[in-house]
């Protein structure tokens, strides 16, 4: 199983280093650590399949447990209604002690998502807690569709428009949803 590229010390050692090296301690250490987060991620995946949050779905992209793709359907009654937004989720190897990295792959007009797709959501940064799961993270993202957080913006210009002229903001957001998310 490939480990995510986040921290170098968990990368498998080059095979050349194993030549003539019988000690299994180092490889065992890496395996244990990976499987610790792996078990947690597998459990979250099962949990997500059993009880998926509203308008959300997520799962591993390929055979890599640490790299997921998620979709969030724009909630009804918002400017993002009807849009399907794709996100990349990368779990660090020390997940859940470090937050997963989420990235919008679909362009979205939202004050908490910058042009590169990064989110300015506090629970994915400073307010991350190991007790949070990807289900809760997706629910939090869906909630900022319903209610953006203009005081913690990724793009202050959009936040300013959202606060000053809500109708204009929603009009642009609808147009972007129609153009990029359908």
């Amino acid at each position, binding site marked *: 199983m490939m480990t995510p590229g986040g921290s170098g010390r968990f990368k498998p050692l080059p095979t050349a280093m194993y030549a003539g090296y019988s000690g299994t301690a180092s490889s065992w250490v890496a395996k*244990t*650590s990976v499987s610790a987060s792996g078990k947690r991620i597998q459990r979250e995946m099962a949990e997500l399949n059993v009880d998926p949050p509203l308008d959300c779905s997520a799962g591993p992209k390929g055979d890599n447990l640490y790299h997921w793709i998620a979709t969030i359907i724009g909630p009804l009654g918002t400017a993002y209604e009807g849009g399907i937004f794709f996100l990349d989720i990368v779990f660090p190897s020390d997940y859940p002690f470090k937050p997963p990295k989420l990235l919008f792959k679909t362009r979205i007009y939202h004050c908490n998502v910058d042009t590169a797709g990064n989110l300015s959501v506090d629970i994915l940064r400073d307010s991350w807690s190991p007790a949070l799961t990807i289900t809760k993270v997706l629910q939090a993202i869906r909630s900022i569709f319903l209610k953006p957080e203009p005081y913690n913006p990724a793009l202050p210009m959009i936040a300013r428009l959202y606060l000053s002229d809500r109708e204009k903001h929603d009009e642009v957001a609808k147009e972007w949803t129609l153009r990029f998310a359908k």
Partner: protein
Amino acid sequence: MISDSITNASATAAPTSRDYGTKKKRNHKSAKMKQNKLGLRREQWLSQVTNKACKEEKSGNSSEKPDLRVENLDGVRREDHHHESFMQSPSNSSMGGTDLSTNFSGKSSRSSSSSSGFCSGNVTEEENLDDDDDDDDDGCVDDWEAVADALAAEEEEEKENRRLRESVKEDESVGGSSASNVCDSISSDVVCVNDAKQKSSNRAWRPDDDLRPQGLPNLGKQLSFPELDKRFSSVAIPSSCPICYEDLDLTDSSFLPCPCGFRLCLFCHKTICDGDGRCPGCRKPYERDSMKAETSSQGGGLTIRLARSSSMFCRF
């Protein structure tokens, strides 16, 4: 008299073994051997007794309790009850004392305590042991209870004596004569008369008995162990760590690092403390001294925790 009493004792021991032998195993081998030997003699004796016992039932037992009537068919069983009742109820013991002083001479009672000089002592002791076992089986009485009864009875002896004497005389008038018929074969009238009187209070203390000593505990409460059941009832502790989903072991389950009540395993706690050290449940920083305080308070958990933390070092 000596030979008579031995005969009595043996005759008593034999039915005891027969009646209760199927219930439990006996430890006293000597008693067993003796009982086996005396089995034949008992058969002979029983055949003599049954006829008279039937007469007795007709004549005198109408006033007695129905459960006692059954025992009267077997005259020997009364001897057993003599012992049991002596130990069970202080009223009996006090009555025995009264009888010794007033109605009868010193040989009236066959029980071990009142007949200290009795020659059938060793046999009687075995009987008493058997009787003790029987009492245990019934869940009624123990030795300590008998002692408590006797002690409490001494205090109330004066008060009880009058009442008991009356009841004794009633019994004497009814059962005493008939019982003496039965006991002719054993040639110990006094014993049988005494036994007949003892029947009147042939039982352990009831919980609502007025004469019950205050010091006696309630056995029903003791046997149920309600607190023990409570301790093992289910508690709201997660079965697995909410962080890593590994099962919580005993140490983890008792580990409560944050006052908010968020539980996690020691591995995850250590990892978090190596990082920002904030509780996953409330996001407040862990108190750094909390772990030390807990180890000092729980001396037993210290070694386990050290072993675990050292294994954490191996892990990284």
